[in-house]
Every structure is written in C-alpha cells, then in structure tokens.
C-alpha cells in the first residue's frame, strides 16, 4: 500500500472517530438528570417562565436534533459558546487554562521522553550494570508514587523548608497586561515552574526508561547487531542502531501520552495551585456548565485522536515494514 493511501485511510478513520466522540459527549450530557436551571427554580430564585426565557436564550428549547446540528457546526468552527455560569465565552475560560497546562506538561514530557529513553537504552545495553539497576529502581519509585505525593514532598523541602521556590501564586497567563511572552519569559515564572516541572519529569521518567531498556535488551542478541559489530562499528554506534530499532514503542507511548496531556493532571494542578485545564474542567462539571464541559472534553478527545494519527504516520516513517503490511 502506498504511503498516500495509508495516510488517507488513517485520516478518514480519525475524522470518523472524532465525530463519534463528539456525538457521545453530546448525548451523555443531555442524558444527565438535571440542568443548571432546574436548581434555580427549586431554590425559588427564578420563576418557571423566566427559566423558559433563559432556555430560549441559550437555544435549549429547540428540538434535540437541531441542537445537535448546531453543536456540531459550532464545534468544527471552534465556537464553543458562552459559559452558563461565568457569563463569558467558553474559549476565554478554556484557552488560558489549556495554555498553562501545555506550558507545564509538554516541555516536561519531551524532556523526560528524550532523557529517560536515552538513559533506558544505555541501561539496556549495559545489562546488569549498577547504572541499570539504579536507574530502574529510582524511576520506578517515582512512577509508583502518586504525583501529588512527590509534589507535596518537593513543596515541603524546597518551598517551606529551604524557601527557594514559591509554593503557589501562579496566575492565568492572560492576567498579565504586558502579554503572554512577558508572563512566560520571566524569572518569576521560572520560580513557579521548576517544582511542578520536576514532579512531572520524575513521574513520567519510569515509563520511558523501562520501554527503552526493554526494547534494547530485546534487540541486543539480534543477528543484525552481530553483523553491525562484525562490520567494525563501535559500541556506541551499535547502541545507536539498537536504539533506532527500538523507536517504535517509544514513539507510540510518547504520542499517546501527549494526547492525554490535554486532560491536565488535576492532582498536580491542585498541589501547586496551577490554573490548568484539569481544574477548569472539574469546576465546570461541578457547576453543570455544559458548554465548558463539552468544549473541554471535545478538545481532549480530539487531542488523543490526532496524536494517535500522528503515531500511525510516525510508524510508517520509522519502520519501512509497516507500510508494506496491511494497515
């Protein structure tokens, strides 16, 4: 199968999946037993006729299929509507939160993916060495500890104990009148950044290290590495080839993880008082703020689907045998 056909097929599948995800979100939320206005009626703050007016204002009085079509149409033009509880566009709520989350998690994930994978490959190549054992024990320890526990310990030691870094106070990036760049490229930001960044890197390092180590261990006895060695390649060059042949699981995992980043890590955000998407979503759910929840969940689903697609395409680029196979 040619690469082009492969690409078209995969993209089509991704598009269909997105539509399914969106419909599921829509249906699920409509099936919830209450809506945000029923509470107001019960508390006596609004009369039924006022509620009717409000529902009409938000278009909730239209037939369900009209609502669905409008919803789809708006989603694909990235118009998420107004928040029911905060009286401002959903994008204004989600945008900054998402940005904050990505600024924190994406660099952390990329860093750990590169460093831990290289360390894992080295560990796998030197099987039985102290480095291998030490790296596995350390990273597994941090992987097994919940991220908020690591976070709390970091805070206890470096904020409250040594007083090096602030424990909270990260603001929304939009709150700075001088703009985004001024927020993110300041020393103050760096101080807020270092602890949650470290916690994230430590948390994810175990996965990449073990994946990389295991695939290099698998490759190590292989015939083609023997031939590479017989050709006179040095240890590091051989490790390079072993690493190149171990990329597949690492890339898959990286892509999947990146997709999941869009959900934020609620516990981490709470511990470090980081205004991210995870917190925004939980708040919106508690307030029964449909439009915000819908938009947040849509973005998460889209991210996972898009990253899966990216992983598939990366496969075909990384492993020439994938294209040949029936995919």
């Amino acid at each position, binding site marked *: 199968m040619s690469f082009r056909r492969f690409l078209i097929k995969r993209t089509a599948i991704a598009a269909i999946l997105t539509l399914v995800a969106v419909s599921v979100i829509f249906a699920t939320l409509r099936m919830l037993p209450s809506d945000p206005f029923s509470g107001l009626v019960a508390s006596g703050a609004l009369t039924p006729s006022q509620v009717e007016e409000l529902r009409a204002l938000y278009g909730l009085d239209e037939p369900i299929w009209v609502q669905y079509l409008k919803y789809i149409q708006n989603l694909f033009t990235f118009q998420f509507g107004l928040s029911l509880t905060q009286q401002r566009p959903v994008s204004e709520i989600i945008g900054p939160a998402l940005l904050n989350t990505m600024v924190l998690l994406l660099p952390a994930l990329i860093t750990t993916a590169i460093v831990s994978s290289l360390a894992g490959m080295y560990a796998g190549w030197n099987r039985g060495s102290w480095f291998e054992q030490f790296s596995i024990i350390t990273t597994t320890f941090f992987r097994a500890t919940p991220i908020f526990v690591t976070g709390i310990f970091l805070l206890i030691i470096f904020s409250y104990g040594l007083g090096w870094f602030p424990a909270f106070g990260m603001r929304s990036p939009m709150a700075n009148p001088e703009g985004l760049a001024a927020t993110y490229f300041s020393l103050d930001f760096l101080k807020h950044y270092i602890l949650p960044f470290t916690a994230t890197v430590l948390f994810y390092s175990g996965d990449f290290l073990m994946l990389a180590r295991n695939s290099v261990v698998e490759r190590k006895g292989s*015939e083609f590495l*023997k*031939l590479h060695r*017989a*050709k*006179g390649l040095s*240890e590091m060059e051989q490790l390079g*080839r072993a690493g190149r042949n171990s990329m597949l699981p690492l890339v898959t995992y990286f892509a999947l993880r990146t997709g999941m980043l869009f959900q934020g890590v609620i516990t981490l955000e709470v511990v470090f008082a980081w205004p991210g998407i995870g917190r925004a979503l939980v708040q919106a759910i508690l307030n029964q703020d449909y439009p915000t929840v819908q938009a947040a969940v849509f973005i998460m689903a889209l991210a996972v689907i898009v990253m899966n697609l990216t992983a598939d395409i990366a496969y075909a680029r990384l492993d020439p*045998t994938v294209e040949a196979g029936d995919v």
Partner: protein
Amino acid sequence: MSLLEVNDLKIKYRTAEEDVHAVNDVSFSIGEQDNYGLVGESGCGKSTIAKTILGMLDDNGEIAAGSVQFKDRELADLSENEWQDIRWEEISYIPQSAMDSLDPVMTVGAQIRQAIHKHRDATKAEADERVAEVFEIVGLDPARTSDYPHEFSGGMRQRVTIAMALVLDPDLIIADEPTTGLDVIVQDKIIDKLLEIQDEVDSSMLLITHDVGVVAETCDNVSVLYGGKVMEQGATYDVFMHPTNPYTMGLQNAFPVVDEFDEQAISIPGSLPELTEEPTGCVFRNRCPFATEECEDGHPPLTASGSQLSACYYTDRADEMREAAAEPETWGIEAEDDRETSHETGDVILETDGLEKWFKQTQSFLDDMRGTEPDYVKAVNGVDLTVRQGEILGVAGESGCGKSTLGEVIAALQPRTGGDIYVDGTSVDDLLAESTKKFRSQVQFIFQDPFDSLNPRQRVKAAVAEPLKIQGYDQETIDRRVRETVSDVGLNPPEKYLDQLPAQLSGGERQRVAIAQALVLQPKLLICDEPASMLDVSLKANILNILREMADKRDIGIIYISHDLASLTQIANRLAVMYLGRVIEIGETREVVQNPRHPYAASLLAASPQTDPSVNRQRVLLPGEPPNPVNLPGGCNFAPRCPKASEECRKDEPKRSSFKDGGHEAACYFPVEDVESELLAQYARNRGETAVQPVDEGSIEESVEGE
C-alpha cells in the same frame, strides 16, 4: 605463508555450574585464496571458532590457551578498538540467518555504505559506486540498493550479506552456515555465486557448516570437528573419499543422498559428550563402534594417515573400518531381513479429491462493498493424493509451495475450501460429525519443532498418556500402551525416560517422544511435517528409521512432508513434488528420482549437494524465484521460469496426467528426457545472457523468450 593460523586453541565458556570446554586443542591453517571448511554437528565448536576469529566470543567465553595468528599478528590479545579496525577491513563475515541479519530499518545500500565509511575515507558517491559494483558481483540489481531488507526474498538477502562481505576486499571471509535455511535451489545458486566470487576476488574463505554436501562441493581443505576436537583434517577430496576416522565415516554415511534408495539410513547412536571437563579419552569413544579400551587413554593425537591427519588410534585399520561403517549393523541398527516385503502396501487409507485451500487476501472496505472478487492465495489447489496402509508418501517442495498447509488441511487442523478427503473410505466431514475424538485417534500429526511442540512442564509419561486419557482409556491400558509405545520409538529402557521432563532430553529424544505421542493411539494415518529438519544429521536417520519401521510393522499410512529430498528418497515409497499449491509430479520414489519428467521436479532433484567429492555436479541455476502466489497468471505456474515453456504452456495449465507412465504422473506438456542438456545447460546459458538476476516476472519472461 598462511593467512590464518590457529594453534592449539582452547576455548571455555563459564556457566553458573561448571565450565564448558567448547574447543579443545584445535589447530588448522588457511592459506591465501584458500577455501577452508569446518564441518561438524551442533555443539562441535565450529561456530565458537568462527566467533573467536572475529573477536566476537560471547562475554562468558574465553580463550584458555593457544593462539590465533592472522597475517603474523596475534588476534587473541587485541583490544576491542584494535578489533574494530580489523573487522570487515581484513576479516568479514557472512551470517547464518540472512532473514534477520540485516537491519530492518536501514536500506541495504546504507548498510553496506556504513561498512565503507567506517573503514575508508570515501565520499558518498564513491561508496555508492562500490555498492553498485558488489551488487552486480552477487547478481543483484544495483537499482535496488535503496530498498529495505523486507523487500527482498531470503535468497536475495543472503546475496546482500555476501555483497556486504565483499565490499572492502577483505583477506578472509568467514561464512557461518551461509546456506542453511535456504531452499535447495536457492542454496545451489548461492554456492555457485560463492565459488564464482572465489575465482574473481583474492579473499580466502572459511566455511562453517553442518552440511557435508556443501563442504564437499566447495572447499579445498577441511577439518571435521566433534566435541571441540579436530577428528580429521586434510584435503576435502581425501577426507571424504577415503575417510580414516570413524566419526567422519559415520557423518558421511548418515548424510542422506538423493539417489540412494532403500538403504537403511545410518545414524550414530548415543549423544554428544558433556564437555564440562577436558576430554580424558577420545571424545567419540562412547558412540564409536570401533572403540576399545585404548581409546580411554586420552584423545588420540592427529596422526598422518594417507594424505590427511586423523585423530584415531586405529588409522591403520581405516580401510577395514570404512567397509564396516557402511553397514547399518555396525552402528547398532538392526537390519530388516525382509526389506522387499515391506514395500507391499495395503488398502487405501487416505484419498483426497481436488483438495483446495485458498486463503482470502484482505481487501479494502470499499472493495468489499462493491463486491469485488478478492484475491486468493491458492496454497493448496486441486490436490489428488492417495496413501495406502504401510505406505510412506513423501511430499517435497520449496518453502511456500503449500506442503505444510496440505498436511494441516488433511489432518483437519485447518478447514478446507474445496474438494474432499476420505479416510478409510469415509468422508472426513462424516467422521468429524460422528466424533471428533474418533477422528483424532485415527489421524495424528507430528510437528517440525521438537523443542516447542512438547509441554515443558509435562513429564514424558504424562505427555504420551494424554491422548489416551482424552480418548477415555482406563489407567491400566494407558500404562501398558505408554510403555510399549515409548519402547517402540527406541527410548529404551522406557523406565529411564518416563519420568523425565523435555528439558532433560536431547533433540532427537524429544522428537521420539513426539512420535510416541502420535503413535500411542495407533492411528491409521500419520502426517509428519518436517519431523527431522531440526535435528543433526546423525540423529535424523534415527527418526527416519523409526517412521519406516512403524509404517511396516503397524501398517500405518504416513505422509512425510519435507524440503529435504534426500531424507524423502530414503523412506518414501512414493514421492509427490509440489509447486505453488499443485502436485506437479508424483510416482514411485525411484521412478521420480531417476527419471523426473517435470522440469521443476528435475531441477529440484538436481540441486541437492553431493557428499562424494569426486562427483562434479552441474549446478542448477534456475532463474528467478517462485512468483507471488496472489494473482498467478494463467497456464502452467512454472512456465515463466521454464526453459522449455511454449505458448501452449502459458495458455493452458497442463493436467497432472499430461505425462503418464503407470503410477508416474507429471503435469507437463513437454516431459524432460535429459536433465543436463534440456535444463541445466539452458539455465547456465540464460544466465550468461542476463548477467544480472532478473527481479520481476516481466524480465524473467523476457530472458526466457530471448533465447
């Protein structure tokens, strides 16, 4: 001045319990432009020696004593950095398993270029040019250097590794089982290529193999290894014409040869010695029919005997031993008095009628919707066979010809897509409908790999008893039958084996347990898929003998599926040759082997190597490879590669009875009369015209038409 000199080399492997003395006092030397062979069975230390010469001994291996001198330089003391300079520049290597020896995510050209850049200061263009050169030398299309390994067939990948080995003009090329795992026709082409290259370049070659035939046909000098010791050493011609060591005699006699019929296969009794300590006596003494007390006194030194060296105390009795070694009785095999009567076969036990197994190719969802007829791989395509009681039907063919699928379909391990199967006159469907258990008790299967097909946690007794338990026999019968069967397959005394786990058994013993498992239900039909292909030569014969005996004594019909024609001719009463899902020739084994009529069957038979170094065999340079089994063109499947093909062949597929002489049938309009002139000479001539191996079918056809 010799290029490589190995002196009194001793290599030990450290294991958790005790050291293994893999190589003990081995000496040999390779001259300039010499083809040297190291031959022996698994565990004889031949691969260890190869690894030592490349400095790639496993981490737990060490050179305990002796020296390896290469161009007057001691290799044993080199550091890893010094090794990296020598590897490939001076000593290159052709690996055993070409299928997985190439880096799957690197183009073949890049892998060869890598070797150039590592050792030479060359620009990419210069390197590319050199890669194209070596590609042409090995007969690959230079336009394919930017393809990935998975785009090449097994034989072509082996050519890539050979090209790689040649690229820096090394002084020595080590070829570790370069043809093992390849089909016999491909093997023949690779051997031909190696010899041709040998004439053109100045490199010496060290060939490591278990295949006596390959060594006899390619090497000038040879060392026969056993248990880490050199048993016999000298010019290949002398060693295999007049062996003076009992092990060489055993090995050579055990090696099956295609045109030896009815001779009971010779196998060397016993198994390899434990190499946990240095040998105190002759390493072969516990399996040697000529051993005496004297043989306990240390391994005999290599002494001159005739024109070769032999490690035996009785080299003066060589002639006498040679005569005795040709008799199976010498090796403890009971002779069958009435070999002739054994060939009387009984009633038909199996009949297949137009048997078909087509595998549907997956197609896109849209094509499915449109109702497009999917492509099929016709693995088994209209096969008619009969097997009688007490008869062994051999099924031969190259990998991918559908022979294994045929076996599995007959045993109902896979559903068939068309045709009928009758066991003892009853349709398989009826048998299965009546009782699956009953059907299974009548038709049994033996798999290729004795290492995987036994449950590692099940003792021999439990493993053999299991089929009986499933059939619901009482405990007493089970015990009796298990004991009888284990003894019948030559595991004597049974008590010794019944409580052992598969891990405690050798490969040959495991395969016998697998056979016992199949025979314990006293089936009417036994299907064996390559049952001996994983075993060493000296054990292979044993398995063949047991199967032959079972067919004769118990009147079982046996289908023996194998790519190894030599084994087939030894035990099969009738032989069927398959090509791309069809039986293209069938008949009495002797008839088919001596007068093959179908060009493909004739080529296949002619491609088997000969252990007799005095025979000068014309190589089979059959062009191309079997075509992609999807979407085969109409007409005879073999026509695109056949030198005799005409318009008729390309249009209509010949029926199997196109040639018929008694029970001998061949699916060919123009049956072969003389293999040499009609086929082999033609192949060689065609190849001369198209220097480069044709890659796709189109060019094959052109080269055929261009005669």
